[in-house]
């Protein structure tokens, strides 16, 4: 190969990825860097944003227990949502995988269908069913005399976890589904021929092999739940804030952009740490299954 051709073949990948790279830098990296910088600026009720370098916002977040409560609640909700989707989604994917052709594609569509509907519309659906005295389910239960007061759903963490789990379920099912596709179709027969019963087959043979799928699904669900905005905003509202809605309020209501930026940056940093850390752990633990 001539030197010119070699140089060209070296340059080609860069040239081909340049448009996407520029878009990525332009709409993600630069705003991200600006947000991080913004979190170190000063802000006052009357003076607005002052482009100086101070640690005021970070100091406030670190010392005021209000923020600790916000972040603890955010991650508590994300963890509970993740557990709920894993507990329901993994068996769901397994059952789905065992169904015969036509039913399988039908139920897969039922599970994936909600992805086509906006998160706002789906969450508002929950609000219509359980929202106060006028919620459909509440009305029905109260008129039947089953309940005296509405089911505590709106503005509760339980409600938020349930609504989030509903939104996140497809990601868990798909992730476990992908792991199930890698299973040898004869593996259950092999275990059975060696004398294993159905429960043993699931516990000893199936579970360990789909665990990486459950865990990668968990990472997706956890990070999406911790940074979710629409569902907490509708179900939790102002009464039950999480990190994402807190940052939103700082930006758009209080207009304290630097503080909002600090909250957003902290949320991002915490998520990146958690996701990268657990991913490394999973890959090490399940190296043999991933191979």
């Amino acid at each position, binding site marked *: 190969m001539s030197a010119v051709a070699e140089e060209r073949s070296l340059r080609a990948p860069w040239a081909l990825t340049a448009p996407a790279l520029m878009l990525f830098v332009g709409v993600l990296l630069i705003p991200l860097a600006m947000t991080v910088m913004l979190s170190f600026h000063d802000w006052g009720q009357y003076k607005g944003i002052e482009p100086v370098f101070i640690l005021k916002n970070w100091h406030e977040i670190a010392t005021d227990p209000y923020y600790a409560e916000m972040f603890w609640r955010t991650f508590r909700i994300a963890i509970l949502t993740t557990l709920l989707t894993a507990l329901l989604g993994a068996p769901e994917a397994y059952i789905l995988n065992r169904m015969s052709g036509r039913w399988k594609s039908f139920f897969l569509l039922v599970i994936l269908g909600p992805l086509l509907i906006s998160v706002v519309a789906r969450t508002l659906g929950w609000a219509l069913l359980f929202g106060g005295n006028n919620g459909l389910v509440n009305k029905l239960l109260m008129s039947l005399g089953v309940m005296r007061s509405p089911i505590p759903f709106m503005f509760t963490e339980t409600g938020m976890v349930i609504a989030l789990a509903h939104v996140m379920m497809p990601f868990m099912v798909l992730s476990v589904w992908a792991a199930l596709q890698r299973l040898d179709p004869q*593996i259950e027969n*092999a275990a059975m021929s060696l004398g294993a019963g159905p429960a043993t087959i699931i516990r000893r043979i199936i579970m360990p092999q789909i665990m990486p799928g459950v865990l990668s699904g968990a990472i997706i669900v956890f990070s999406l739940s911790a940074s979710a905005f629409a569902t907490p905003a509708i179900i939790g509202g102002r009464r039950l804030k999480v990190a994402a809605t807190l940052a939103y309020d700082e930006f758009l209501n209080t207009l304290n952009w630097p503080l909002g930026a600090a909250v957003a940056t902290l949320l991002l940093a915490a998520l990146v740490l958690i996701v990268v850390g657990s991913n490394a752990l999973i890959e090490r633990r399940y190296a*043999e299954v991933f191979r």
Partner: protein
Amino acid sequence: MAYLELDRVAKQFGTQTVVDDFSLSVGKGEFISFLGPSGCGKTTTLQMIAGFLDPTRGAIRLEGKDLTAIHPAKRGLGIVFQSYALFPHMTASENVAFGLEMRGVPRAERAERVRAALAMVGLAGYEDRHPRRMSGGQQQRVALARALVIKPSVLLLDEPLSNLDAKLREEMQIELRQIQRTIGTTTILVTHDQNEAMSLSDRIVVMSQGKIEQIGTPQETYEKPASAFVSQFLGKTNDFAGTIDRTVSPTQLVAGSWRAPAPAGLGGPVTVSVRPERIGFGDAGLSAKILTRIFQGNHWLFQCDSECGPAIVIRQNDGTAQPGEGDAVRLTWRPEDMSVRARAGA
């Protein structure tokens, strides 16, 4: 007394009959092959013995007991799958130990039996390897050890060698046969490879379209094929159209210019089947012209155009001069080397 007995077993999927009227009795310690093209029902039959499928009709008995009434997990059969179906999250020894664990074998005895089983298949020292870090041949051995360690009453092999390359497959065939001889486990092998079936088994069950074509020793099925299908499927064969001439006495079998005393019980148009290695070049017989001559080391392969259609001839490379391409020859064979069947629609 039959050890394993299949009595008129049939399997239908919907309206489609996949296995029909399958009867076979297997003696203890015997090595049986189910041989046939894909879709002939051989794997379905194996799965019915294993219990993964229930027969639509018929009975399967092991030492006189009805096997179909026993749950597959309790049948105590050893199975090697085509894909091996090893547990990828367990090491080789954990894979082999699984069946013993399910049987509640104490830990110390388990460890000893696992070690012995892996040593038997030549995998001593590989105890802690995971299957995905092993070659195809090694995985195959782990699967065999896993099936044998539970001391199965019958060993079922579902095309176990089909994923190996030719050289390894030959090695494994020899080894499989040796292991089976040593421990004496009754074995059923499903295969579409006639060489594999012939070199491994005591008896071959040739199947086609869900039905048994022939049951016999490798030699019987090769030399006395019961049907056109068997003679075509087991090795190469030449089919010549001939007739039985009753106008002369004694009656004669005529194929082109080749003639011989007619076998009893046949008349009219017949098919004469002769194996290529049983045909020689002579002074009288079927006249033919050699189209191509291929040298294959220990033998010569001739493709000829005869009076009765194309013919293949295989001659040992014994050092004598062989006819060349384009030569006119006469093909001849001994009457006992052919099989004659009535020919329909002529």
